[in-house]
């Protein structure tokens, strides 16, 4: 379509030699085609969603029973499937299967348990959040107060225990629940033999 103006074929009266007048307009269609082709290609190949990470700092030594305050501790035992067994407090010699309860990793399972036990921390966090949303708090003060609320000395300390059959996805789901429920302190350790025995007992007595 590049238009080149050539004088109409009919000869004029005076055949003067004139420089051909070239139009300044060039056809941009092919360039546009190419441009959009490239645009489409890059749009389709670009992925904006970078993977995200959960930060994890495992304990340096293997500890089976971290010395934490008994009353604020919640122990979770992750098994082979989505089921989670849990009990409050640390593992004691007189623990038996009557002390443990069963739930699962779904939204209505573990989350309800942990949220229920950590309610007062959540309430204080909600206060801070409403203040922050109303622009009454600076970002740094907000972060500091959040840390403080999560680190409250009565806040739950969650011990996540895994056995040899636990799947990685369930560990990530449990860690994720800790984030959702604003648990500031949690640790990830191996289940002890007593824990495993307790689960086996529990399964036996609750078979019916």
């Amino acid at each position, binding site marked *: 379509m590049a238009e080149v103006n050539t004088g109409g074929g009919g000869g004029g009266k005076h055949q003067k030699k004139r420089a051909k007048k070239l139009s300044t307009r060039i056809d941009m269609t092919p360039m546009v085609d190419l441009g959009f082709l490239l645009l489409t290609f890059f749009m389709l190949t670009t992925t904006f969603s970078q993977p995200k990470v959960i*930060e994890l700092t495992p304990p340096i030594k293997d500890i089976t029973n971290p010395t934490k305050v008994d009353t604020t501790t919640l122990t979770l035992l992750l098994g082979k499937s989505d089921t989670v067994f849990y009990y409050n407090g640390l593992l004691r010699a007189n623990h038996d299967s009557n002390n443990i309860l069963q739930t699962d990793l779904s939204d209505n399972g573990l989350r309800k348990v942990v949220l229920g036990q950590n309610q007062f921390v959540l309430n204080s966090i909600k206060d801070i959040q409403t203040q922050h949303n109303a622009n009454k708090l600076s970002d740094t003060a907000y972060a500091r107060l959040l840390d403080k609320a999560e680190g409250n000395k009565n806040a739950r300390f969650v011990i996540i225990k895994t056995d040899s059959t636990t*799947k990685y996805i369930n560990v990530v789901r449990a860690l*994720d629940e800790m984030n959702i429920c604003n648990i500031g302190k949690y640790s990830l350790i191996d289940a002890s033999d007593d824990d495993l025995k307790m689960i086996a007992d529990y399964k036996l007595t609750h078979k019916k």
Partner: protein
Amino acid sequence: MPKIKLPRNSPSIDMTPMVDLAFLLVTFFMLTTKFRPEEPVKVVIPFSVTTTKIPDNVMTLSIDSAGRVFFDMDGKDVRPEVLKSVMSKYKIELTTTDISRFAVMGTFGVPITKVKAYIKADDSQRKAMSDASAGIPMDTLRDNQLADWVYAGFTYGLAAYNEKKSKGENARPPKYAIKADGRAKYKLVKEVIDICQKAGIQHFELITSLKAMPKG
């Protein structure tokens, strides 16, 4: 009745603004796109609500659903050092081409005896080798090659960072990521973490993809 004559519009419109816009977008996408080398191992990462982005300068240990472990590391300048140190331990000679090819390689998971062949191979051969391999051996008692890679990666990554920092250059501290398949056993992930801990790594990043935060 007089006829109303509609002015005849030329069918050709001025495309300049559209072209401008199109090329602006092309330029944007060209500059933001980062081409990733194809991963030799397929890992289905679990979801989480965390919004922390994956950092730069990261050493990644991938674990697939069958429990095979693969190693990868950022840093074209550090990778040759890591390779040289591990290979000298196993007394395998390398040419300079091998080393420069390794610098830009990607994730790999073959035992040490096959690393040289893997570097020389082309993409399709590499894929076949990765498929056939059982990952980097990590037998804690006899043949812990993963520990050698991790240790070399940790030492040289940190050394390079410290050197850059002392020169006042802009450098990012090395980070250590674990990219495990959700179906993998946690026991295995823990073994990998243990190996890293023995090498001196304390903090880990578990790679996940984003899911929406539930309400409340």
